[in-house]
């Protein structure tokens, strides 16, 4: 739900300019699919035809039927119900993690760029060192240490993806920071928060959003990787990545159990990128 929120914030600040933000059709389709999945994630639990963990059919890898809309999985559970519940985990965890990672990374990156000096050096070196730890190994250690729960998963994914976002935002902000309008604001006596929020952020927001779209896809993939190792969402629940993993043997039977979760992942990641790439030009390329 974060993306529409970001948009409305941008709309709020520029209202006096009386500008209308027009989406093209690709952006609208992307937004519609995101909203649809978010709705499923929130209200899906009351509409699942069968309980998520219940084995409803003796026939494993069952075909699409009137009773089971997306077939059944390797244990004979209803895939449609599992995809609906999986939306909670995938959309929720991935969106929460990507938002946290990008927000933290971008804010830290901009502060480092504006302040420079020792703050920049220390933060940059620390996060560089952190970047060197393989992400799945890091996840393994964290889950082994504190156990697996949704907040731990979100924070782990945030920690894995924050340094990249920081690097990206810092590089952009360093470029903007040398522009004369920032110097003018500095000479006016403005404090760091103003410089970051009003002078620098609006000029990097387009690139940051594009980066967010890419990072979101990676987080969905790592989440399914963690689930495969048993570190992710715990059974009987499963995120979409885990659904694909646990039904992978069904691929040779052409089972819908593996196809539909894959389609769900694809539709979400593609629509997020479609939406971001087609944001109104005024938000996306404001610096141009």
């Amino acid at each position, binding site marked *: 739900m974060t993306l529409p929120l970001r948009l409305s914030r941008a709309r709020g600040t*520029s209202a*006096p*300019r*009386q500008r209308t933000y027009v989406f093209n059709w690709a952006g609208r389709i992307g937004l519609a699919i995101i909203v649809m999945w978010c709705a499923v994630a929130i209200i899906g639990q009351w509409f699942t035809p069968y309980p998520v963990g219940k084995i409803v059919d003796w026939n494993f890898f069952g075909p699409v039927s009137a009773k089971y809309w997306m077939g059944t999985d390797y244990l004979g559970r209803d895939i449609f119900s599992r995809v609906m519940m999986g939306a909670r985990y995938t959309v929720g965890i991935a969106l929460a993690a990507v938002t946290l990672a990008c927000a933290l990374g971008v804010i830290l990156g901009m502060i480092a760029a504006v302040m420079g000096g020792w703050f920049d050096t220390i933060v940059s070196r620390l996060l560089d060192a952190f970047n060197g730890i393989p992400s799945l190994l890091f996840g393994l250690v964290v889950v082994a240490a504190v156990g697996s729960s949704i907040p731990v998963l979100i924070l782990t994914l945030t920690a894995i993806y924050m340094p990249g976002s920081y690097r990206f935002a810092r590089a952009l902000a360093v470029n903007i920071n040398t*522009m*004369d*309008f920032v*110097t*003018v*604001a*500095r*000479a*006016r*006596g*403005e404090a760091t928060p103003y410089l970051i929020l*009003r*002078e620098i952020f*609006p*000029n990097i927001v387009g690139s940051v959003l594009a980066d967010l779209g890419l990072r979101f896809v990676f987080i969905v993939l790592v989440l399914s990787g963690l689930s495969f190792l048993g570190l992710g969402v715990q059974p009987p629940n499963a995120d979409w990545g885990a659904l694909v993993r646990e039904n992978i043997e069904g691929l040779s039977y052409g089972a819908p159990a593996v196809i539909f979760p894959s389609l769900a992942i694809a539709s979400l990641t593609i629509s997020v990128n479609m939406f971001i790439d087609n944001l109104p030009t005024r938000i996306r390329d*404001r*610096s*141009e």
Partner: protein
Amino acid sequence: MTDAPLVSVRDFKVGATTDGGRKIDIIRGVSFDIAPGEILALIGESGSGKTTIALSLLGYTRPGCEMTGGTIRVGENDVTAMSETERCKLRGVEVSYVPQSAAAAFNPSKRIMDQVIEIALIHKLMPRAEAEEHARSLFRALALPEPDTIGNRYPHQVSGGQLQRLSAAMALIGDPKLVVFDEPTTALDVTTQIEVLKAFRSVLEKTNMSGVYVSHDLAVVAQIADRMIVLKNGEVQEEGTTEQILHAPAHPYTRELLAAFEPVQHTPIEARGRDVDHPLLEVIGLHAGYGRVENREPTIKVLEDVSFTLKPGRNLGVIGESGSGKSTLARAIAGILPAYRGSVLFEGHELAPDLQNRTKKQLQRAQIVFQLADTALNPAQSIGTILARPLTFYHGLRGAARDKRVNELLDMVHLPKSLRHRLPGELSGGQKQRINLARALAADPVLILCDEITSALDTVVAAAILELMRDLQNELNLSYMFISHDLSTVEAICDDVLVMYKGAVVEALPAARMSADAQHPYSKLLISSVPQLDPNWLTSLEQDPELVAAFSRR
């Protein structure tokens, strides 16, 4: 001029497609001839199409543009009808090009000689040894130092003026019939400009080549061109010999261009209701620099021991060439670059060297305006937001009172109120510079530090900005510290002038008697190097070669 013209351009048009898919005409039916051996100047402000026409003579249009009508004939070749492959054979041999920025035109990783003779080798005009010999004779003709060995250097090992002459050698190596000079001296300092102009002129006189000289500077063009074409919005406004254009301009636009060139004498304003005896700004022994700090001194020292005083209501000009430390001086006074020694007294109180330790009141009373309005205005903020910020920040204005003040400010810089909803990218260069000035005025300062604020603007636009600054000074009782490399601008607005060279003030003069009173050899050199409208100026100019050599850092 009895024989057939070398170049004839007839009803030539260039069109472009904008980002919005709209078709616009850049050149709208231009016709002219160039006789063999004649130098034709294309004059006009930015956007007038002068470079587009010059590039078309090489059969080249910039991406997004296309030739939409008319013909261009160069010698025997019908350039407009040629295929791209045929045009390639034309370029460098029949027509060649000297770019504005030689530094950007040379490949920094190849030796100069290899780049100069490239044309001869590509077109297989002569064997390598012969080409190098020819290049050396060109170096000699262009008065380059050490002509026999300079070709072995890399581009960063020669000065900017030398590089510009080397790029002329590159253009001349194929013995073209026509050379296109695209603002070749615009990026150079005045003292360097002279040596380059002299070299160009002597070569052109010797070889009987034709030339097209593109420039916005009438005085420079007057030294080198036989004929001039004045362009505006892709149309010829006036065509005539240099003498006629300069002395008997027929078209109003030409007169406007010439009027902008007329030196305007500055009349000091009366400082009202202010303590005139106490200096507004007093700088004592200021040192500033960049780089790593060792023993509390930066390793790269720029400013050394700069002292001056500025009285209320008076304007101080700072002149000097690039690298003389004029911008650094403004930055050190504004606190953007903390000075490491010396002191700045503003309205009787000492200012802290760095911004963080100055009070809001001190920051508000002295404002700085930068050269490039493009980068000095946040592209993501509307004009209204940009102007409103200092009002809120310094004076706590909000809501209707702030809106009213923004409108007043726009009115002060002669811009319509409707502009407040626009983004900086939607404004012209002159409008942006006015907004830049209005933002400084929003703080209600007593002193404005102007860092080359008219240098990036066309002459006519710059003259209007100066006019505006004079009016504002009378109205608001301001003082300006005006930094510029252009002496006529400084003369037009300043009471006193500081001449800077290598980070030190060499001389302080009253602006009105700048040329008469200058004592220091560098000031004399700098002042005498400013091109005059008189076509015989360069010929009659006498400068002590030793002096030039000593100060132009060769």
